[in-house]
């Protein structure tokens, strides 16, 4: 049976590799170009790394989607970590509380076609992003 989605638990840095490889394999079946696949892999790598660095554990969920005749991929990165106190600040280039370059979230937003983030302090963070096949 052909699979249309993958879900990867993110607990350690090795899971970052698993998440981006599985997402790449999945997206490949939908006709993404190799440069789009590299973009998807980079976005997932950043999102998964945020989970490992800040929340310690979470999930990366990737699903093939079709909307209004467009094919694409939906990425959801979820955790029950500490949450982000100031989302506006977190979305600024160069900002990071862990001195990790701070390009993570704004960079991911640039890579994807849609990007939404919800975060509640003490409850966790969810990033939802989509990338369409060009």
């Amino acid at each position, binding site marked *: 049976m052909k699979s249309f989605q993958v879900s990867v638990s993110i607990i350690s*840095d*090795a899971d*970052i*590799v698993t998440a*981006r*490889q599985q997402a*790449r394999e999945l997206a490949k079946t939908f006709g993404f170009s*190799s*440069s789009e*696949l*590299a*973009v998807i*892999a*980079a976005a997932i*790598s*950043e999102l998964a*790394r945020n989970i490992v660095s800040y929340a310690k554990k979470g999930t990366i969920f990737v699903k093939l989607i079709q909307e209004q005749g467009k094919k694409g991929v939906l990425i959801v990165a979820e955790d029950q970590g500490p949450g982000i106190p100031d989302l506006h600040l977190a979305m600024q*280039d160069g900002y990071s509380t862990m001195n*990790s*370059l701070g*390009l*993570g979230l*704004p*960079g*991911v937003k*640039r*890579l994807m076609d849609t990007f939404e983030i919800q975060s509640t302090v003490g409850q966790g963070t969810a990033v939802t992003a989509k990338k369409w096949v060009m």
Partner: protein
Amino acid sequence: MKVPILKQGNILIATIQSALTDQDLISLKDNLSHQVIQHRSHGVVIDITELDVMDSFSTRTLRNIASILKLRGADTVIVGMQPDVAFAMVQLGLTLPNVKTARDLEEGLTLLK
């Protein structure tokens, strides 16, 4: 997957594989830092031909490796970055300032001569 390091004359060649974890990159940094002294190497080529993604962590670690090796007396050249990887990196806003790059191993070795 551990990154193999080969010695060729006074150059070290590290060949990165695609499934590279953060821990592998940190080990590479430590190993290269020790081996340049152990082998009295004056140059290091890091071949990333097989690498299918670069994110903020790998970019920062490669930049740190080059800076550390410089302080240890060796020049670093990053070779073989795939066009798709470069494309995604630039979109993410990642750069490798002050780090030498070359298209392939041969060119990288020439740069270090």
